[in-house]
């Protein structure tokens, strides 16, 4: 069974600085999707970025980028030029490509605070 681990329960960053959130996962599958979701205090679940395992190029969405290391089963999220609105819980998630309607498997989350 696949597992997702986020070993940093809390992280803090100064506004305008860069922060990296860590995520590792375990799977025997060779192809899969990885995601980062943001959950602000309102508790919505907002997709931040996704990575397809067969793509070697790291995904980027504006200030958000990932460092995908397939061999190490590592998928970290880098937030550049951090803003106050980035403060939230961040969840790393895994999804199989075995079937189209595959479930998301989430990590425990990292609470990010942004200091002005």
């Amino acid at each position: 069974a696949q597992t997702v681990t986020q070993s940093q329960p809390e992280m803090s960053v100064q506004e305008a600085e860069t922060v990296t959130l860590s995520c590792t996962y375990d799977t025997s599958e060779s192809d899969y999707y990885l995601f980062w979701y943001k959950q602000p205090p309102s508790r919505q679940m907002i997709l931040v970025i996704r990575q397809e395992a067969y793509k070697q190029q790291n995904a980027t969405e504006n200030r958000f980028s990932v460092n995908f290391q397939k061999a190490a089963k590592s998928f970290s999220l880098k937030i550049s030029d951090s803003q106050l609105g980035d403060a939230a819980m961040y969840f790393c998630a895994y999804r199989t490509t075995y079937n189209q309607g595959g479930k998301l498997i989430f990590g425990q989350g990292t609470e990010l605070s942004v200091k002005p």
Partner: protein
Amino acid sequence: EPEVTQTPSHQVTQMGQEVILRCVPISNHLYFYWYRQILGQKVEFLVSFYNNEISEKSEIFDDQFSVERPDGSNFTLKIRSTKLEDSAMYFCASSAGWQPQHFGDGTRLSIL
């Protein structure tokens, strides 16, 4: 941009009562999901639904739970006899196959 909508936003129910949580997925999506998040914990998968039947369910999704798509737009989660430990945020999500899942804003369920 199309959204997944969930109602109600907050439901308070007495233990032992039945509760129905409602969701309207994005109209052209075919895959529907329910997830649960107990306060302070990670998001957990409950069930996925496709072509009018359950495609996968977790150990959490026992006989107390059921899902239904009663018409062409709604997707519901029913808990037959609620327990204190059912208190959680319940998220509905939908997807168009390989595309990422889109989540609703959640229903906060409080069992007294």
